[in-house]
Structures are given as structure tokens and as C-alpha cells.
């Protein structure tokens, strides 16, 4: 169930197969690539080719490739199903932005998503039962497409049966539009929210006074121990850990300088030097990143903003929330992006509230000089994830259990105001693990249903997952013995990319009538 390991194993298998020396490995799937490959094979530049496709390839493509290989240079043609991006062992992404048009799938994206999801299933050797979110048409479509592929390629999916079959749960982002709108305080999520993680790389070029070799840094838990240990810790803990790291580093440094008298010292130094250098690289990287995060937090007054965000997301006190939002809108330190975000959260939460004062807030936004793009996005977000489309209730629980839960959540949330919010996914998965998830809301595809509690769960969120949810899944994995959960999404969102997703899906708000087309990318401030 480890996505990263699955891909790694594929790669090492490939390298092993092709043997030592320089060989050509290809990982293609698109028809376009097949055509390029055909051209290459007609006039080969290398003496031997090992071709690996990252997904199912059609028989006709194999045939046309074979016919192009007149010089008999191809030594291997295989399918290795690594057609997704493994972010963490339990998180994968397809890096697709704007997968839907309105409420329906963009056909190209649907097929791509189906391919990615089936590739994941194949690489993990899981032939799952499928459940989907009833309120979402696209979830149903995707479920059907995946099922279709499984039926079609039944030979491939013929794995050793486990006692409890694995489960694929397909959800829709529009059911929980709150989570991607919140500021995050755990390391990985925060870095993504404020700096943006793109395939494990973060772009620091906008950081003032950045040195040349830190323009773009790699944050990968695979080979950065500090990151692996700290990615799920919150900002305060990171701060103290960074301090420890620095101290540790500095303690080492002068020691190296002082005691270099004996041969043994020299030997130790030479042996430790690469390690020392690596550590200095880690230290400078994380210090820079955390420094930049804390600069942004201060500059954008994020502590205060986040507190109100959490209040909006987790509590039901309308008047206090409204008051706080108003107050922050007056604060000049709060950026227009954050201001718009607050109003979005307010709009989502108190959409149907009797004393809804959204229009007043919108005027405030306008007076503040927030660009029209953001103002339009407020209504677009409501349209995307408003009450009308939500299948489950995001804010006010109805039955006693849920109320108690929220009460308990409240008690627990006290520990940290900034991380009170638990994504809806937590609740959903919790019920799923306990076998209490309602069939009426999340029906099975096909006649078979799961009797036992599920053990291997793959959750896929159409419209993108978030790192907050990744953290939730991580914690669920750790707190529930015997349960393994993998989270995937068409992409991994931060607020900015989520808003882009909303825009790309065609929700442009009520003022879309003005012919102005919203530009996709935008500066944050």
C-alpha cells in the first residue's frame, strides 16, 4: 500500500532488467509519444531499447511499434503501472488542474484520471470494491469508468484475493470546499499553502535576499530526514526543532575546527565531512524555508487571520464571526487574498443564515480595493461548494452522536486554535473504518457490498486533495491498527490552486456576464 515504494520498485526493476551500461528506458503512454517512438525506431540512435509504458497500451500501438522496429533493436516492451505522482507513501496525485467543466467531467481529464487511478490500483495490486459519493455526478462517472477498466482488463486485475477486499472511495471536492480555503500550520501543508510545493520542489526565488543555490529547493521525505520527521508537526514545533537542529549543527562546527591534532581526529573529520556538509545543506534549506514562512506569517498577519478562519470553519457563532471578519477587513496588514478568503469562508458557512450579511462584506471588500477577480470568486466558490451541492453537512451536525463529536472536537480543539478544524474526510473515513458509513450517501457500485470493516482503503478526491487531509489520513493510519488508507486527488491543492480549480471549472460567479475573462494565474498579493 506504499505508493512511493511501488513506483520505486518499478524503477529498480527496470534498471535491473536493462542491465549495466547505457540503455534507453522510455515511459510513455500518450499516442503522441508512441508516434515519436515509432519515428525513433525507424532510425534508431542506440543499439538496444527497453521500452516501458507507464500504463495500459493498446494492442494496435504495440503492433505499429513492432512494425517500425525493422532493425530489431527493441529488447523489451512492458507495462509498468506507475502512472501517477507518489507524493508520500500514503498520498498520490495526478497533477491535473481543472478536471471538471461545471459539474461534469472534462472527457480528456476523465480518461486521464481513470488511467491514473487504475495504474495506482495495479501498482498496489488491489482490485477494489468501489464506493462513491452519491451527491456527485462526477464521482459516479469516475467510479463507473474505473469499474469498466477493471472489467476489461480482468486478467491484469486478477490478484490474490485478500480476506477483506480493498475499498476505493471516490469523493468530490465540492462536498468540502472549506478545507482548501484554510491557512495551514503543519509544516508540509504550510509550505504548500504559502510557498507552493510542485513535485516536491519549492520555489524560493521570491524570497528577499535568497542565495543562488537556494532558489529552488527539494523537500522530499525520502532523503531529508528532518523533513520526514517534521512534515506533520505544527509551526511552533518546527520552530523549536529547527532551533535544535541549528544548535546541533553549531555544536558540531566548532568542534571540527578545534580538535584536529591527532590523526584520529583528522580521520574522523574526513569521514564526517560529507555528512557535515549534507547537514549544513539541510540546515540552511530548512532555516530558509521556515524563516520565509515566519516572515510571511508576520507580514500577512496570518495568526490572526487563521484564528478567525478556524472560528468560521468550526464554530457556529454568527455574530462573533461576522464581527471578527469585519474587524480583519479593516486591518491594512491583511492581504486582499486573505480578505477574500475570509469572506468566502463566511459565505460558505452562513450561506443560508437568517442574518446573512454577505452583501455588506462584499461592499467592504470593494471599498478595501480588493480586485474584482477575487470578489467574483466569492460567489463562484459558493456556487462550487455551497449548500446546494453538498451531500453531507459540513457545519451543523444533526444527530446526538455528531453533536457530541463536535463537542468533543471542541474540547480537543482547545489545544490549538489554529488546528481546530478537522476536514470532513476525517469524519467520513472514521465512519468508514467503523463500518458505519451510510450506504445511502456513499453507495457501492455493483451489487456486492462489504460486510466487514474495510482494511485497505483508497480514497480519491475529484477536484484535488489537500495536505491537511493528507495529515488526517496519516493520523488515521497511525491510530487505527490494521487499517491502511491511501489518499489521492486529481491534484493537491492550496488555496490558490483551489481557486484556480474553481475558476477553471467554469464557476465564475454571478458577475460573469461582464465579458472579462478571469486570468488563471495571478500574483497572490
Amino acid at each position, binding site marked *: 500500500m506504499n505508493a512511493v515504494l511501488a513506483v520505486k520498485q518499478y524503477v529498480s526493476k527496470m534498471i535491473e532488467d536493462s542491465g549495466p551500461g547505457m540503455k534507453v528506458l522510455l515511459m510513455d503512454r500518450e499516442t503522441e509519444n508512441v508516434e515519436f517512438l515509432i519515428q525513433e525506431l525507424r532510425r534508431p540512435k542506440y543499439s538496444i531499447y527497453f521500452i516501458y509504458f507507464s500504463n495500459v497500451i493498446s494492442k494496435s500501438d504495440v503492433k505499429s511499434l513492432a512494425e517500425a522496429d*525493422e532493425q530489431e533493436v527493441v529488447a523489451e516492451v512492458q507495462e509498468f503501472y506507475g502512472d501517477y505522482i507518489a507524493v508520500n507513501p500514503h498520498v498520490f496525485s495526478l497533477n491535473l488542474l481543472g478536471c471538471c467543466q461545471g459539474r461534469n467531467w472534462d472527457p480528456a481529464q476523465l480518461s486521464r484520471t481513470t488511467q491514473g487511478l487504475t495504474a495506482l490500483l495495479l501498482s498496489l495490486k488491489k482490485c477494489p470494491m468501489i464506493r462513491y459519493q452519491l451527491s456527485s455526478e462526477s464521482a459516479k462517472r469516475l467510479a463507473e469508468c474505473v469499474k469498466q477498466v477493471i472489467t476489461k482488463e480482468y486478467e491484469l486485475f486478477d490478484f490474490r484475493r485478500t480476506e477483506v477486499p480493498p475499498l476505493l472511495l471516490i469523493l468530490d471536492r465540492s462536498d468540502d470546499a472549506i478545507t482548501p480555503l484554510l491557512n495551514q500550520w503543519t509544516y508540509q501543508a504550510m509550505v504548500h499553502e504559502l510557498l507552493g510545493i510542485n513535485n516536491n520542489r519549492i520555489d524560493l526565488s521570491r524570497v528577499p535576499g535568497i542565495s543562488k543555490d537556494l532558489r529552488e529547493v527539494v523537500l522530499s521525505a525520502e532523503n531529508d530526514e528532518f523533513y520526514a520527521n517534521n512534515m506533520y*508537526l505544527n509551526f511552533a514545533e518546527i520552530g523549536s526543532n529547527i532551533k535544535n537542529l541549528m544548535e546541533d549543527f553549531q555544536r558540531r562546527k566548532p568542534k571540527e575546527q578545534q580538535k584536529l*591534532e591527532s*590523526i584520529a581526529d583528522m580521520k574522523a573529520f574526513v569521514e564526517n565531512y560529507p555528512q557535515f556538509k549534507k547537514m549544513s545543506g539541510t540546515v540552511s534549506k530548512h532555516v530558509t524555508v521556515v524563516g520565509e514562512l515566519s516572515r510571511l506569517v508576520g507580514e500577512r498577519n496570518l495568526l490572526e487571520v487563521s484564528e478567525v478562519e478556524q472560528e468560521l470553519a468550526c464554530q457556529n457563532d454568527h455574530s462573533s464571526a461576522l464581527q471578527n471578519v469585519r474587524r480583519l477587513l479593516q486591518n491594512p496588514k491583511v492581504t486582499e487574498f486573505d480578505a477574500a478568503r475570509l469572506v468566502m469562508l463566511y459565505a460558505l458557512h452562513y450561506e443560508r443564515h437568517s442574518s446573512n450579511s454577505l452583501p455588506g462584506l462584499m461592499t467592504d471588500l470593494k471599498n478595501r480595493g480588493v480586485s474584482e477577480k477575487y470578489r467574483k470568486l466569492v460567489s463562484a466558490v459558493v456556487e462550487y461548494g455551497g449548500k446546494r451541492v453538498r451531500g453531507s453537512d459540513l457545519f451543523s451536525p444533526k444527530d*446526538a452522536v455528531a453533536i457530541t463529536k463536535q*463537542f468533543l472536537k471542541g474540547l480537543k480543539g482547545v*489545544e490549538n486554535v489554529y488546528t481546530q478544524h478537522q476536514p470532513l474526510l476525517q469524519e467520513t473515513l472514521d465512519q468508514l473504518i467503523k463500518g458505519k458509513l451510510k450506504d445511502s450517501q456513499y453507495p457501492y457500485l455493483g451489487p456486492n457490498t462489504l460486510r466487514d470493516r474495510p482494511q485497505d482503503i483508497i480514497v480519491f478526491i475529484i477536484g484535488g486533495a489537500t495536505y491537511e487531509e493528507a495529515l488526517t489520513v496519516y493520523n488515521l493510519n*497511525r491510530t487505527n491498527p490494521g487499517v491502511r488508507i491511501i489518499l489521492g486527488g486529481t491534484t493537491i491543492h492550496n488555496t490558490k490552486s483551489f481557486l484556480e480549480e474553481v475558476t477553471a471549472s467554469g464557476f465564475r460567479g454571478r458577475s460573469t456576464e461582464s465579458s472579462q475573462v478571469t486570468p488563471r494565474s495571478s500574483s497572490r498579493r
Partner: protein
Amino acid sequence: MASGCPPPFGDPGEMREGFLCPLCLKDLQSFYQLHSHYEEEHSSEDRDVKGQLKNLVQKAKRAKKKLLKREGDDRADSGSQERYESFSYGGVDPYMWEPQEVGAMRSHLSDFKKHRAARIDHYVVEVNKLIIRLEKLTSFDRANTESAKIRAIEKSVVPWVSDQDVPFCPDCGNKFSIRNRRHHCRLCGSIMCKKCMELVSLPLASKLTSASKEALGSHTSPNSSPNSVHGSRRGSISSISSVSSVLDEKDDDRIRCCRHCKDTLLKREQQIDEKEYTPEIVKLYEKLRLCMEKVDQKAPEYIRMAESLNAGETTYNLEHANDLRVEIQKVYEFIDALSKKILSLGLHEDPQPHPKTLQLQRMIRYSATLFVQEKLLGLMSLPTKDQYEELKKRRLHMVALETHGKQEEKQKDFISRSAAAVNGDAIHLKKGTVRKSEGWLPTSSISRESEIADPLLQQIDNITSFIKQAKAANRIDEVHMLQENLRQLQDEYDQQQTLKAIELSKKQAEEEEMQREELQVLREKEWEREHHKFMSRHSRTCSLDFREVKQHQHEVAKENRNLTAQALDLDITQIKRDPSFETPAVEQLPAKEHLTFTLKPQNVPQCDKDQTACLNPFEDEADTPQLEEDPANPFAKDTSPMVSFSNTALQSNKKAYNPFENEEEDEQTNGAPGSTSNPFEEDENPFQKPGGSWNSGNPFEEGSSTNPFEVEDGNDISGEEAIEEELLLQQIDNIKAYIFDAKHSGRMDEVEVLTENLKELKRTLAKQKEKSSC
């Protein structure tokens, strides 16, 4: 949980802390347990709970707000507690998930191969068909054959499609008419218009056909002659044929074909070209490799010659060696030139080659230079003619010296032998009854043995002294040569000794029988009466009373002191062991000597052992380990039983090293040259006790086990230094690399630190060198 919540709802009289269920007030250990407890126990309870709960919620909110204020302090550790707690819950970190098998995969190779094979078969058949036809079409002399005849032949090769069947050109779709005539492909017989017609020139045809013939291995005549006379034929035929045939005449040196056939032929041509084409760089590189191989072959031969010539030997001819040297140098120059050529390949062409190509060229050049540097430096220079003469003379002189030394040695030996005889008596007296009653005289047997061995041993001894002299005079070449001689001598001696040993063991087996009988009788008496003497003799095997042994050793030592000749020898060997004097190669020599010399004195302890047969279960095996045993005392050859005795003493001394450390040995070896009179005296005694106790176990194996130790002894000291030096040098290299790296990436502070280190290291290295040289 320290930050656990004080119950906001409990009545003031009873304050309870921890996770209490709001309904039954049960104390639960953690949040999660409370959670699950609530769900299990109370989820079914009535809805009116809700009202109660709301009340609680209000209270909780108040408590929350209170807590919010101190959130700043709490945040950090609450998080870690949370983390800690979740650990205890038995779930698994996704990073720790158990390993999985590699994911699904599917091979299309068989499918692929099937399609490819079909395709290639088809293609090959097609090409072959066309080429066979082409060959038929070009096999006759086209230029001198009438066009009608040509046409007949062409039609016989492939049936032409009849004109009526094809009203339109199949390629471009134009209608055929008088002006747009039909043309037949000579290779497949199909019809096309003039526009779509392609032509195959005769040279191309011949190339294709000959290539395929070559491929088949049949070297028939290459092809029809190129038509040089075709101009004359033109007019004659034009009268016969129609307008179309006039058009035909234009290309009688070419063969018409359709586009399809032409494409196939062109592809085939391309393949042939590719097969024959080797890039320039590959050609040059192959040459380069060839040269390198040549060098690898010749260089060792040359080095052997040069060594021998430099040593003044006459095995090889100086001129011959010079020739070889020139030859090798030429190859080097060639390698250099070739690699330069590779480096500059394509540099002057207009589109510069790909950067990777250039890199490859640079790397080839680099490796070639490295090769030349490495090997060229290994070529030692030859002596000039004059020098060579000089060397030869010197060698002759050396040989003369050797013989002279041999005579001297004989005299010396004579003296020492007489001395040994005296000693032998003394010992005999001391050893008393055992020997006499046996009727087996160790002295005589030893002297007998030694007499036989004498010339060889003397020779060996001479040579070792020569080596020393040569070394003192810094004549390394001679040292080498002498060592070679020495080795040969030793080999021979070894052989002799093994034979003797076999003989000896046979003899011993006989004697053993006798000894055993007598021993049975005498053993007990001896244990009491002659404890002292017995002990001294058996100090190697079963020393019990160490003080007595010591005493005895003193006596031995005293006697030793009288033996001047022996002392002299001892001196030599001790000096030899001094590590600073010797190169490792030489150090091995004394070791070998030990090996060879041991056999002789062995007899003494041997007989002793035989007497203690009942005590010593290893006796029968004694011979074999003894062969390898190293008494570490080369002067044992002096044949006196006394010497052999002190030899045993020394041996036990050596054994004593085992439990101790190198330092002691160092002490010994370093101290030995200082005390010239008798270095044993001081050193032996302190070690005697442990030596004895060690020996009581299994003396023979122990003895042999010290052997390598002893040999390494000398090596160790200088070797250790060498290793340290090497290490230092390595580290200096490493640090240099780091400095370069740091400079490269502009980390000046690191550079400073590193240079500091480098200086430090160099200082240490200098110190080390001083130490090792003094």
C-alpha cells in the same frame, strides 16, 4: 495528558480530572477511548440527551475560551503529547508499512516479437525478390543489347501488367493517353505514368546486388560492366521504335521502377551503408586500444630487461633493450597523437558536434594521457654503455667477494664448532642420566647434521652479510641481486632439510620405542631428583617451577657469553631486525632463515620431548609443527647444543609475546642492538614465567603460532608508519578536493577551515616522516 481538561461541568464538591464521560462520569484514559466509549455506550440513548449536551457545550465553550488564552504556552507540548499518544495506539506510520511485492506488470514482448517477425519476414522477402530481379535485369550487357531484346528480357523477369487493366495512373490518378503514356515498373511489372516513375541507376543496382551477394557469401562476378559505349547506340534504335521508345532510350543505363520498389531499394541501400559505416571516432579509438595493448605487452618485458641490465647482469643485450625502449616510446607517441586527433574531431566542422560528443572525446583524451603518464613513468632508464661496463665489473667483484667470504665463514664455523663441542659437554653433564642411558647423543647427531648442512648455510650467511654491506653502501641493485641468490640458496636448503626431516622422523620413531621403555622406569625418579635440570630442558613443554627455570637460564646465559662467535652472529641478526634499517623486502629474509635453521637445533628439544612422551600427548605430531617452527634465532646453525638450548629459551621467550603486546616486542627488538654482549639475558627472564605457563598447553602449536608474529614484528613498526603516512596523504588529498569543491560553490568560510586543516595535516605528515626516518 497534562493539558487535559478540568471538567467544566462537574459539581464543585467533586473535582475529577481526566477524560470523563459526560453521561456516566466514567474515567477514561484518553480522548480516543472516551470517544469510542461514548459511541459504544451512549449512541443509542435518547434524544433528550441533546438538551443536556447543549448545556455542556455551552460550558465547554466557556472553558475553551479560558484555555485559549494560555494557548501560547501549551501549543508546543500538547502537540508532542498528541503525537506520543497516537503512537501508543498501535496504528502504523505509512512509512513503516510492511514491504510489498512489486506492482503488476505486463509484458508485450511476445506480441511485439510476433508482429516484428512478421514484418521483417515480409520485408526481407520483398527486398530479396526485388534484388534478384534487379540482378537479372543487370546481368547482361545492357549497352550492347538491342532494345527489343532488352524488353523481352525485362518482360521475362517479371510479368507486366497489361495496359488495358490500368486506365489511370494508380499513384496520381491521371488518365493515360497518347501524351500521358504508360510506363512499366521493371521490378514489379506495375504501371504508372511518367511523372510517378522512378529510375534505378546501374551503379546503385550493382551496389545492391553485390552487397546481397556478399552477404550470401558467394563472390560471383561483381557486376556488368559500366556502359561506356552507350552514346553510339542511340540513333540506330530510334528508327525502330515508336515515340515512346525514343523516350525509353534516354535511360538505358537506368532501370525504371515504381516508387514503391525504389523506396524499398533505397532503404536497403541505407541499411548497407549503415552496416559498413563506422564513425571516425570509433576507428581512431580502436587503433588507440590496439596501441595500449601493445604497450601492456611490451612494457613488462622491457622492465625486466632494464632491471637485469641495471644490475650488471649479462642475460640481456643492452642494444636489444634500447631498441625495445625506442619502440615503446614510439607507441606512446602514437597514442598521444591518436588521442589528440580524437580530441579535435569535428571541432572545425561548421555545426559543432553535440556537447556530449565533445565530452566523450575529451574523456578519451584524458584517459589516454593518464595511461601514458602512468606507464611512461614506470619505464626505468637504461645504463649507458660505460655505465654498463662498470656495473658488470662491480658484479664480478661481488662474486669474488662472495667466494672469499665463504672461506672466511668456514674458518669461523670451525671455531664455533669447537666451542660448541665444549658446550655440548657441559650440557651433557647437566642433563645427566637420561641422555646417557638412552645412548643417543644429541651433540654428535647435531654436529653430524650440521656438517652436512654447512656449506649451504655458510653460503646463506655470507650472502646475508653481503646484503648488509651492500645496503650500507646504498647499492640497491646489488642488494636485489644478492637477495635473489639468497632466495635460491634457501630454497635448496629447504628441500634438503625436508628430506632430512623425513629421515629424522623415521629414525626417531625407532628411537622412541627404546626411549619409552626407559622412560617408564626413569620418569618418576627424575621428577623428584632432577627436577631442576628437567625443568630447564622442558621449559618449553611443561615448566612448573619458574624460578628454577630462571636460574637455569642464567647459567645458560653465562655460558653464552663465552661464545664470542655466537655473540657476533647475534649482533648481526639483531641489527637486521632493526626496522629503520631495512626495507620490507629485506625483512622477510631473516624470517626465511629462521625457517630453514630450525630443523637442526630441533633435535635437542626433540629428544627431550621424546623423554616426556607420556606427559606430552602431542609428541607424535611434534615433527610437523616443528618444521615450521621458528626459534627466531638464526645463529642456531652454529651447531652447538648450547646454542640450541638458548634457542629454546628464546623460543619460550617469544611465546611470551603472545599474551603481551607489541610494545614489549618493540622493546626487545629496539633494545637488542644496544646490548651487545648478550641481549638475551635481560630480556628473557622477565618473560620466562608466562612463557612457561603458556607452553604447558601445547608448545608446538604455540611455537608455530608465534612465527608469523615474529615475522611481522619488524614489518609492523615500519608498516604502521607507512599506513599512517598513507592515510595522511589520502586525507590531504581528500581535503584538497573538499577545498576545491567549497571554492567552487563559493563557501569561503569552509575553505578557510579546510585550509587550516590541510596545514595541520601537512605538519603532522612532516613530523611522521621525521619520526620514521630517524
